[in-house]
């Protein structure tokens, strides 16, 4: 029985996957994020961006899911990027030693800009990055 207070919206741009989990990462429902990551990795997308802007709460079960993702990415020789992290979640990631394994950007588009030098493709040239 998975609760309804967690969902993941994702999209792919070239070899980059962008995942935006929403809600509470505080029970087994958070596994959905890990499954989505696995699917992208299996398809050969090795650069994963997770945008945390809509995440309310992360407890140890949610942390476990993220640790699982860190593990999967390193096994696949991929790279993980976290963006839009709230201070309290950053503290949790730091405490659990997760941040050593991810690159952190303030905003999703900054991560994208870093990954895609050709910003035009994203229609980003008009925005003031």
């Amino acid at each position, binding site marked *: 029985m998975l609760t309804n207070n967690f969902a993941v919206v994702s999209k792919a741009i070239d070899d980059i996957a962008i995942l935006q989990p929403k809600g509470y990462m505080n*029970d087994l429902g958070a596994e959905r994020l890990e499954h989505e990551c696995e699917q992208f990795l299996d398809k050969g997308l090795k650069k994963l961006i997770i945008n945390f802007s809509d995440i309310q709460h992360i407890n*140890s079960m949610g*942390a*476990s899911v993220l*640790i*699982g993702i860190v593990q999967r990415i390193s096994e696949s020789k991929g790279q993980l990027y976290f963006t839009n992290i709230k201070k309290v979640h950053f*503290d949790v990631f730091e*405490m659990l*030693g*997760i941040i050593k394994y991810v690159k952190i950007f303030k905003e999703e588009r900054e991560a994208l800009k870093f990954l895609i030098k050709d910003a035009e493709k994203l229609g980003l040239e008009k925005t003031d990055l």
Partner: protein
Amino acid sequence: MQKNWDLKRLIFNISSLVHLGQEVTSSKGFNEKIKGALYVVTGIFSIPRAALLIYNSRLHSLDLLTSKGLKGIDGTILRIEHRHIKVLKKNEIYSIKELQNNPFYKQNETAFKTLQTRTFIPLFVKEEFLGALSLGRRLSRTSYLQSEADTLRAIANQISTTLHNSNLFKRLARKATENKKLYENMRHIYHNTVQAFAAAIDAKDVYTKNHSNRVAKISVAIARELSWKDKDVEGIYIAGLLHDIGKIVLDRVVIRSKNLTNAEMDEIRKHPKISYDIISKIKFPWKDISDFVRHHHERIDGKGYPDSLRDKELSDGAKIIALADAFDAMTTERPYQKKRTLNEALIEIKECLGTQFDGNISKAFFKTIQKEIKGELKDPQVLPYLDKDFDPSIIIMLLEGIIAELSA
């Protein structure tokens, strides 16, 4: 900064454990509970790979129940004989190195490699062997600190009890009374978890060994005497266990020293507020716990701390814990004061009525002690922890006098 970190860690761990307590006592299915428990362990300690094994006594094996981060391990089993089980210590945290000379390890070397076991915890309830927790390497690649080992043991206990109860559940017909027993059992684990933390607080200070536990029990006795509802009694029990949790971040030396400087005194006086900060961040199934904890050093005359609240501004719960706390301090040896006899302690409480202690709450306390001494209570909470060197008839006479005076 370091202190701050410990605090965050502490809040995260307790929250996780309280959450786990709620999970395993919920109506969720067994598999989900067990998986949830494994996620809590792996989350708290940053362990990418782990497995939970269940003991099959018929086949003398440990079978895979659930796992995380491990691929292609289906069908992995460990062989385990009675003689192996006998030498395993109950809920002990074994590093794989410690096991390597054990025949049990040698017999299962391949399976241990498949599971990438770094830490192995045999799970028991009483003498019954139920299974084992296999934990892989931590993300940080570090071993477990003392405090982490305590938390890990508390979780192992919860998992053991969950396994045990599921066995029980299978054996029992689902009659209402038996379901109730099961629920009681579950609640018991919940209490055990919080108790594990209370023990960690008290461990900071040899003088207050078991202090939190006694304060919890004395508080329960008073609340019952005041006819509190069962649910609220349970709340004050938890508040009693955790009232000094803020001390966890204080320096051990400061807590134990006899002659405190003003600065050290100020430091110690921060602990109720720190306890409050911790407790208020945890979602407990009882309200007001954080209030009780914050105000356990307040006094009726407003000369207490941290908020200098007076009589009417204080909740009954805070007054109860304050009295229980002071009584336990009086009747145990402390570095800064000598231990009082029961007689002396009761007189001291009486003399501080209206200044330090509340009259009504104290009256309930006196009454419950009277009942305990007379053997009128089935489940005495205060007496079992007191020295038995008092004369019951003298105490009863003293209490009768005080109670009559208070009732006048």
